[in-house]
Every structure is written in C-alpha cells, then in structure tokens.
C-alpha cells in the first residue's frame, strides 16, 4: 500500500513558522479542506504566529486556494499574527496579480526574504 503523502510540511525557525505545500497541483476540494485544517491547527498552536506559506512546489492551483488563503489570513490577523507568501512561480503569481490579491498579501521571492520581512522574535 502506497504511503499517503502529507499535503504540507511544517518547519519551525527562530522567527517564523514555514509551511510548505508539498503538492504540485492544489485543486480538489477535499485536499484544500485538508490543507486548511492542517494550517489552522498550526495557527492555533501559536499565540502570535509569524507564518510563511511556501509555494515552491506548487505549479497549479484553483481559485478555491485563494479563498483558503483569505480564510487563513483572517484567522492569523484576528490573533495578531503575520502572514507572508513566498516562492510563487510566475504563472501562479499572475493569478494573484490579476485578481489583485497582491494588494492584500505580502509576497516574497523566497523564504529568506519573507523571514527578513517579519518582525524579530523577542
């Protein structure tokens, strides 16, 4: 029986929590729901999370993922946290750009610059 691959991987660094999407395509509703539950669980474990969502593996996504990101951002900001997105490939970035979501998300080229953009921990 093939092992089920987790949809996200989580890395805790000094200044941020980095969630990397592991799938190339994020399309199916059940996968998006599963990802949302996982991300929300990570958010709830922290008091004021500085979260970086890493899209380096993502080659394709649907608009439902954009909705997921908005729900995640609302949850984070309700808890006085910070959210950044990073490593979005040009085709995916175009979706953010034409929907004007570049106006509401902080998007960085990579994890390092996203980390630099976050407030330092005490």
């Amino acid at each position, binding site marked *: 029986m093939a092992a089920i691959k987790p949809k996200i991987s989580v890395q805790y660094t000094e200044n941020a929590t980095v969630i990397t999407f592991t799938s190339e395509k994020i399309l199916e509703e059940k996968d998006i729901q599963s990802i949302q539950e996982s991300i929300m669980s990570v958010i709830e474990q922290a008091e004021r999370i500085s979260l970086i969502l890493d899209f380096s593996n993502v080659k394709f996504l649907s608009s439902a993922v954009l*909705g997921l990101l*908005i729900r995640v951002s609302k949850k984070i900001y309700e808890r006085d946290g910070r959210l950044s997105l990073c490593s979005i490939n040009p085709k995916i970035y175009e979706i953010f750009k034409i*929907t004007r979501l570049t106006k509401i998300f902080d998007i960085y080229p990579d994890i390092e610059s996203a980390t630099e953009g976050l407030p330092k921990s005490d």
Partner: protein
Amino acid sequence: MTSEKPVNHSIVVASEPSAIVEISRKILSSLKASKFGQEDIFAVHLALEEAFINSIRHGNKMDPTKEVKIDYSVTLDKIEISITDQGNGFKPDAVPDPRFGDNLYKTGGRGLFLIRSYMNEIKFNESGNGLRMVKYKGKSSLAETQTPPQS
C-alpha cells in the same frame, strides 16, 4: 501524430469534483499533441477547472444525480470547450467584480473572472447554464493585456 481535422469529444459526468481529473488530462493531452504552448495549456486548465466547479457547485448545487456535459474540439489553432449543467442558470453580468472593495476580501467569487481573464472568448447560453469558451493558440488572453480599471 497531430491531427489536422478537429478532434470532437462529448463527455457527460456526475457532479463530483473528481470527475474533472480524467477529462482535464485528456484535454490537456490533446493540446500538447496539437503543439499548444505551456502558457495556453495553463490557461485552459485553469479555466476548465473553474468552469467545472462552477457547474457542479452553483449550477447543479452539488447534486450527485445531476450531470455536467463537456464538449470539446481541438484544432491546430484553437480549442473550444462547452460546459453545460442541469441547473436553472444565472446572469453572468450580475456577478460582482472580485477585484474591488469588499469583494477583494471575499473567499469566493473569482472563478468566472479567471475564466474571462484566461480564455480568449467566452459566451453563455441564454439561460446561463451553458458556457462556451475558446482559446486560440498563442493568442494573448485578457490576463496578459488588461490593466485593472480605475476604482
């Protein structure tokens, strides 16, 4: 071997999100065989996914007994896709622009906008439960050329 004649297909599926997977694979495979570029393939893939989800969610209300009909035709120059659900239809012009005001912060409502942005032509039937969309090989879509109107 690339066909010079239109490749016409018609498929009927139940209102299940996973039903688009195989159809999408076939359509994208046809595009590759007809030498469509990666930009075009991405655009068609996105529009197809969004249109299908709209059909099953908004058209057929996720009723598994209702079906979605997908017709597609691939030539060397373009792909035409028609998606028809068994719902009551809707008024496409009544869908708010997701880019401005409070709509920007909503968790949904971007599917139709993306379809319009990534396909070269789209047209709904009179009742609004059927959508025909066309992508021309190598032709810039709205996504690449449109600048947002002033708010």
